């Protein structure tokens, strides 16, 4: 009976199954660590106090506090949901142990309830862990082809389409900051996509890394499978790429820190020539970042975009340095999710997408490339990340005790 149910769900549900490394769902792993539960209970108390104070009207309106309040209530909501579900599960467990007559039905119900509980406990876990400092930010995606020549450029274009489709499906606002096709027009040399939805960075930050593709390229004449790569860089979008922002931001740098190059025409220049070239190259010496921007007719707009990207890159760099320092302070060999190089493989002949960090497999290439099933991979990665971060947190607490 049990196995038939399993088979049926497997047949009906889309072909998704996880490897052993991923979150195996047995009863123990569903329950959160007592330390985390304690943390959640602290939030409940805090919310109660805050609610009382707000009900009395003794404090005025404050945006920061409202934000904090909404976050608190979200955590508490999922904690309550989690608590009630865990209680049900425990009751069922007791029933299985004590009453053999109801055993079969109870077991059946447990099977049903487990996936729901996994979801809620994962959600609660990610809420309890400290947030990424840029989690609320919109994001900027930079896509560049890696090894593999034209095929890599085509794949980079495919990835760009995937992300635009993903944003489109979610009804998020997005725009292309820069888009440079290769000479033959079949792929891209580089592209920068801005997704202007708050919290988009939190969703997409695990996309950063090298994406590998295995397929028979359109350029291949003998039918051999090639392996090519494309790199994706995900940056938090700190400021709008408007001209006003760029002007004020430019003034925060010392003159010898940055250098702005415009096109260098031969000849006398000035009234002698009438150029339409508006390319701008921005160099930031302390970090060695170089940004080329050439899509707009206005040099000023190109400059503004270049500064927006410089700002995002510097913010990310700073954040990475901070993380690095924290890690060095803990002296622990901690696995990180945002540093590993090859993050994902797209295997077209096998119709399979594998995320190498969490070992997640998805057999729906079309759905992924259309951006419809990308959420599955992202969610798997998110739960993997919160699991490992929870482990890290608990280790830290235990070590300090």
């Amino acid at each position, binding site marked *: 009976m049990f196995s038939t149910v399993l088979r049926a769900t497997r047949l009906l549900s889309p072909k998704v199954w996880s490897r052993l490394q991923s979150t195996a769902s047995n009863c123990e792993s569903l329950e959160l660590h007592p330390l985390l539960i304690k943390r959640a209970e602290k939030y409940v108390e805090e919310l109660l106090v805050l609610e009382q104070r707000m009900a009395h009207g003794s404090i005025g309106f404050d945006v920061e506090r409202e934000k904090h309040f909404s976050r608190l209530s979200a955590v508490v909501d999922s904690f309550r949901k989690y608590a009630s579900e865990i209680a049900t599960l425990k009751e069922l467990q007791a029933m299985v142990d004590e009453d053999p007559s109801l055993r079969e039905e109870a077991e059946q119900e447990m099977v049903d309830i487990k996936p729901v509980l996994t979801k809620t406990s994962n959600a609660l876990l990610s809420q309890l862990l400290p947030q990424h400092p840029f989690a609320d930010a919109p994001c900027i995606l930079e896509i560049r082809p890696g090894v593999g020549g034209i095929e890599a450029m085509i794949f980079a274009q495919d990835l760009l389409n995937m992300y635009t489709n993903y944003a489109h499906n979610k009804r998020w606002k997005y725009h292309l900051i820069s888009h440079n096709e290769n000479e033959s027009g079949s792929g891209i040399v580089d592209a920068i996509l801005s997704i202007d939805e708050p919290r988009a960075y939190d969703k997409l930050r695990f996309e950063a890394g090298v994406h590998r593709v295995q397929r028979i390229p359109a350029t291949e004449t003998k039918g051999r499978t090639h392996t090519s790569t494309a790199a994706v860089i995900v940056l938090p979008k700190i400021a709008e790429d408007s*001209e006003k922002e760029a002007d004020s931001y430019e003034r925060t740098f010392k003159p010898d820190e940055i250098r702005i190059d415009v096109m260098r025409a031969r*000849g*006398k220049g*000035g009234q*002698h*020539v009438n150029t339409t070239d*508006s390319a701008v190259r921005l160099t930031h010496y302390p970090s060695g970042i170089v940004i080329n921007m050439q899509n707009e007719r206005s040099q*000023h707009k190109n400059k503004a975009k270049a500064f927006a990207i410089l700002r995002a890159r510097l913010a990310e760099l700073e954040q990475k340095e901070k993380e690095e320092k924290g890690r060095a302070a803990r002296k622990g060999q901690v696995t990180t999710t945002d540093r590993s190089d090859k993050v994902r493989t797209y295997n077209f002949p096998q119709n399979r997408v594998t995320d190498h960090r969490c070992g997640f497999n998805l057999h729906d290439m079309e759905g992924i490339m259309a951006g419809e099933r990308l959420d599955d991979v992202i969610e798997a990665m998110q739960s993997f990340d919160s699991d490992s971060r929870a482990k890290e947190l608990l280790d830290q607490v235990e070590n300090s005790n």
Partner: protein
Amino acid sequence: MVRIKPSTIWQASKLNRFLPFLLPECRSIHAARQELRWIQDESNDDYQVWKRCKLRYRHYPLQYILGSQPFESLNIKCKPGVLIPRWETEEWATDLAHRLPKNRQIHVLDLCTGTGCIPLLIKHIRPDAVVKAVDCSPLATGLAYWNSKSLGISIQVIQGDILEHNSTVKPQKVDLITCNPPYISQSTFVKETSRSVKLFEPKLALIGCFEFYADLIDHQISRAEAFVYEVGELSQCEYVCRRIVEDPILSKVWRVGFRLDANSKPRVVYGYRRVAITLDWPRIFEEFGELKN
């Protein structure tokens, strides 16, 4: 100039049938694609794109085709018969405008204004300035007026020939004179000016040698606190500098400097009174260029 290879033309035609038309002006496929995209963005249909690409094939300026040229954050309208704003002008004008003090009523006079790009930018960055623009061409003053109306930046536009010293341009006292005079000499116009400029931009706004710089020393300098003139070559900078140094009175009163553009070509000659009455000119022009006197 290097000839465009037939293979490049063939390659371009395979990518887009309009692309070969743009090659003579853009020289490379990459630049041509960029320009084609700009044309496509502002055209209604393929027929219009085709017509515009054919104009471009004959070296007709893109700014006249699309009717505008971005100038810093402003979108300046362009029309045949009026000089198209250059990026070199944009560069120094932006720098200059940001150097002017805020919240002060500075009187600025722009000569040979053309599209009105310089005075409009100054007024846009420093809204408290009182800005006048003069040009001798009715086409230019019309366009400058239209630009000021459509951008919502109010400047006073006057039509008159400054070389003719008649009553239309009264010699009022001003704080700053800016000017982008015609500075291409007859010989360099033939040899070193690009085809698109030679064929389609107004000679009135291009060909000149020293007349405006002579006029600056003879007539304009006496009524101004400071001046900024664009130049085409070093000899024009040196001419202004020499005239001031050789004059016993002017050399005591005025400081003169040159400024290079981002392409390391001499682009601006500027000067200000040593003893500032209204504004602290030495501070404003600090590191604007290299002082010669």
